[in-house]
């Protein structure tokens, strides 16, 4: 019985193709379609925070979200590029979710549930699959990573190994 289908949406080409395929399945199975966008949010483990505090390094009150590095990371120079705020990330999420939702409605999906969540994408998606009792999880094989020749991104790879259900990767 397929009642709940989820798609991991991140704005990449592959994820839009995943949305299209997920819509077909949602219509054929009469299932609810969950469009899940995860805003990358760096969460540090308790152990890490304890270590920092023991070293006299207090964490910032507002953890940084996504930082776009203009060049190689290990240059030893202090970071000087733009910092993306949560506000911007939420606006970006909207720009991605809205077309996906429109696609779903156009294709006749009866029940569409958009979700914008925060955290480590793989972790959040895996938890969502369990909590929302997702029967089929669709994901693009690669996202917005700039690694050339990447055929299967880290998030999709983790979903394949750990998801509590069936995973469908879309090239």
């Amino acid at each position: 019985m397929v009642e709940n289908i989820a798609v991991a949406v991140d704005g990449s080409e592959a994820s839009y193709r995943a949305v299209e395929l997920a819509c077909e399945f949602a219509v054929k199975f009469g299932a609810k379609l969950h469009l899940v966008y995860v805003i990358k949010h760096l969460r540090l483990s308790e152990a890490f925070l304890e270590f920092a505090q023991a070293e006299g390094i207090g964490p910032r009150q507002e953890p940084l979200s996504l930082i776009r590095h203009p060049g190689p990371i290990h240059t030893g120079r202090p970071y000087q590029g733009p910092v993306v705020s949560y506000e911007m990330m939420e606006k970006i999420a909207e720009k991605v979710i809205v077309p996906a939702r429109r696609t779903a409605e156009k294709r006749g999906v009866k029940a569409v549930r958009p979700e914008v969540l925060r955290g480590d994408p793989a972790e959040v998606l895996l938890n969502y699959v369990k909590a929302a009792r997702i029967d089929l999880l669709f994901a693009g094989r690669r996202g917005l990573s700039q690694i050339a020749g990447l055929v299967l991104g880290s998030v999709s790879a983790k979903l394949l190994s750990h998801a509590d259900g069936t995973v469908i990767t879309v090239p």
Partner: protein
Amino acid sequence: MMTRIVVALDGSDHALRAADVAADIAQKFDAQLHLVHVIPEQKIPYVLRKSAEAEHVESPEVLKRDIARETVVEPVESSVAGKGVAGIESVVLNGDPVEEIKNYAERIEADMIVAGRRGLGQISGILLGSVSAKLNQVTDCPVVTVK
């Protein structure tokens, strides 16, 4: 538009479950289901091959295929029989499982490949079998990995 679905079989319960899922999808989409089992290629020792020839016995590959058909494919065919799938084809191949499945899927222009997350002989610590993992990397069509 899904018209042809390939499901990879290896004799495991995982594959049987994958076939059930594939059959459900095939039924909903009115698609043809292709059951594909690949006997991993093993070099047959020269001596064995020669003695088989001397005894006028079928080549080891053919014998293996017949046994495989009976033990791996037929149980799955029975399992999916009552699910209302329009057309079911089955094939047994020899070679590298990933390569053969990929080539077969390309040849028939399959719209989707379905496989179990783990397979036969997988120690319980392994989360994702190597065939399953690779299919998600080297194929050009969506891959369904059934837990």
